[in-house]
């Protein structure tokens, strides 16, 4: 656990970057510091490895005041990743990763072996080991940066906007990768970003800073989105926080209708009565393997010859689907909004249709989710 106890940082020019900060960063989890520019996130982060010396208060790692440790020794036990990766241009990828093991005086071969393992861990090709940083893409450089921070297997990892200099697609994949890595490694990660989306995606806990270096709210992402403590936090996390919050409610709580799902071999005559019984304007047509083929409207059915099979009619494209077992309410809502029939198709993990849910039924589910203060878990 990393604890900030009444920590203040005043720079020599008088700027108060961090103001009486109290924070407990849990071991083995990812804690994200977010807030607008200049609110003291970087400063707080850098007080942990003494890149910035605090003015008053205490920062401790597992109860040990960081000021009792020599900065260089302390830093070798803490991974550090910065925005542009900060890779050494004169060293190969492999030797960049082995920097801290070299500093710690490891045997060269052992250090490089370890670096090779880390390349695999962060998803780099072994063929890139002998390359120089300028021969890598921005995303690959950032992977090297993460591998370098992990090289000496430090329990703590500090990351200052590590993914903000790469394009959104690469950023998303780097975030996924970090979540996967963290599941495996369970490091104490302190992650700075000014992107609330990123914070919600990767954080187990989020600390929102307000200008002037004060902590506004410290919570799990679900509660932060449900119950922002004040207008500043509410404004910062954005007006679509309600929709974003649905990410934390699992879709498996939805009740799906399977009575409006019909086989492609069904006759129009039979389908008409199904639609009438269900009082639904749309039926979902599936193939013999129960995979979706498309929508057919009650209107179309009325005009069709009674003995025609549904598979021979012109179907409306089925649009988006969601996986009932693993997706969230947000994914279901997305699928329903994007569906031409205004209904979301829920499938099993193997792609077979479970049922459909209309926007009206979704609305009711979202309504009751709003009542639950803390959701039941799961995210997209």
């Amino acid at each position: 656990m990393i604890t900030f106890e009444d920590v203040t940082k005043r720079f020599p020019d008088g700027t108060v970057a961090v103001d009486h900060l109290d924070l407990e960063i849990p071991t083995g989890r990812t804690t994200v510091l977010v807030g607008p520019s200049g609110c003291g996130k970087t400063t707080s982060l850098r007080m942990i490895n003494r890149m910035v010396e605090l003015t008053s208060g205490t920062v401790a790692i597992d109860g040990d005041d960081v000021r009792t440790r020599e900065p260089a020794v302390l830093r070798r036990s803490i991974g550090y990743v910065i925005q542009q990766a900060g890779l050494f241009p004169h060293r190969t990828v492999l030797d960049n990763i082995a920097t801290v093991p070299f500093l710690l005086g490891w045997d060269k071969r052992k250090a490089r072996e370890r670096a090779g393992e880390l390349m695999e861990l962060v998803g780099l090709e072994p063929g890139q080991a002998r390359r120089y940083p300028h021969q890598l893409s921005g995303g690959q450089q950032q992977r090297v940066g993460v591998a370098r921070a992990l090289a000496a297997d430090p329990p703590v990892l500090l990351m200052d906007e590590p993914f903000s200099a790469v394009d959104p697609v690469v950023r998303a994949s780097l975030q996924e990768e970090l979540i996967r890595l963290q599941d495996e490694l369970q490091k104490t990660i302190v992650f700075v970003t000014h992107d609330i989306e990123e914070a919600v995606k990767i954080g187990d806990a989020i600390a929102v800073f307000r200008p002037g270096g004060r902590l506004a709210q410290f919570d799990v992402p679900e509660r932060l989105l449900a119950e922002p403590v004040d207008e500043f936090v509410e404004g910062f996390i954005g007006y679509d926080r309600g929709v974003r919050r649905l990410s934390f409610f699992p879709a498996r709580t939805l009740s799906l209708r399977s009575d409006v799902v019909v086989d492609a071999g069904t006759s129009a005559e039979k389908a008409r009565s199904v639609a009438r019984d269900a009082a639904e304007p749309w039926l979902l047509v599936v193939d013999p393997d129960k995979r979706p083929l498309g929508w057919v409207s009650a209107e179309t059915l009325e005009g069709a010859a009674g003995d025609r099979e549904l598979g021979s009619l012109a179907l409306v494209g089925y649009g988006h689907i969601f996986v009932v077992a693993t997706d969230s309410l947000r994914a279901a809502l997305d699928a329903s909004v994007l569906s031409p029939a205004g209904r979301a198709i829920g499938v099993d993990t193997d792609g077979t249709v479970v049922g459909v849910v209309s926007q009206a039924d979704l609305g009711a589910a979202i309504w009751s989710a709003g009542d639950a203060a803390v959701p039941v878990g799961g995210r997209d």
Partner: protein
Amino acid sequence: MNVVLWILEWFGRPEQWTGTSGIPARFLEHVLYSGLALLLSAAIAVPVGLVTGHTGRGGFLAATLANFARALPTIGVLMLVVLVLGIGLAPVMAALVALAVPPILVNTYEGVRGVDPQLRDAAEGMGMRGREVLLRLETPIALPLILVGLRTAAIQVVSTATIAAFVGLGGLGRFIVDGRARQDFPMILGGSLLVVLLALIVIVLFALLRRVLVARGLRRRAAAPI
């Protein structure tokens, strides 16, 4: 006035190629003076440049010093030291070192200063101490520029080491000074050509040194033509 024939005639004289006043002996002397002056200058300027660049302190002082040394008239330094210490190697070295220190010092300083602050931040963040940052990060990155400074200094030293002949020493300057005294034009020309040849050798040597010493990651573009 066929310059080429003159020079060929001069280089063709058999006495040029043997003895203590022959071309090989003078060339070797010139190389020794220049090499010694360059070594002395590098021993002064490289450490000072590295340390001032690393700490960021004393940079202004170093730049002023370099500017002062650059402004010193070589002949004046040479003659003054001769008056004080007498004829010998010392005045020549004093004059040449004053000439060679500024480019080495300035380039070394700028090379270290030019290291991206983000890299320095990353290095410190990983737990490098000041000395490690200097030796493992700043020096290798500044090396291409340090070599440029050394090369500039070397070319100036090679060209100016001719002044050794003024205070009775050897080197290629002998051909120039003696040629002047004897009104032997081909001799002055020949001596000058030999100096230029040595400068060319210096340029080639530094190109090779760059190849050997500078990390491939820092050599994105091809070496500049010369």
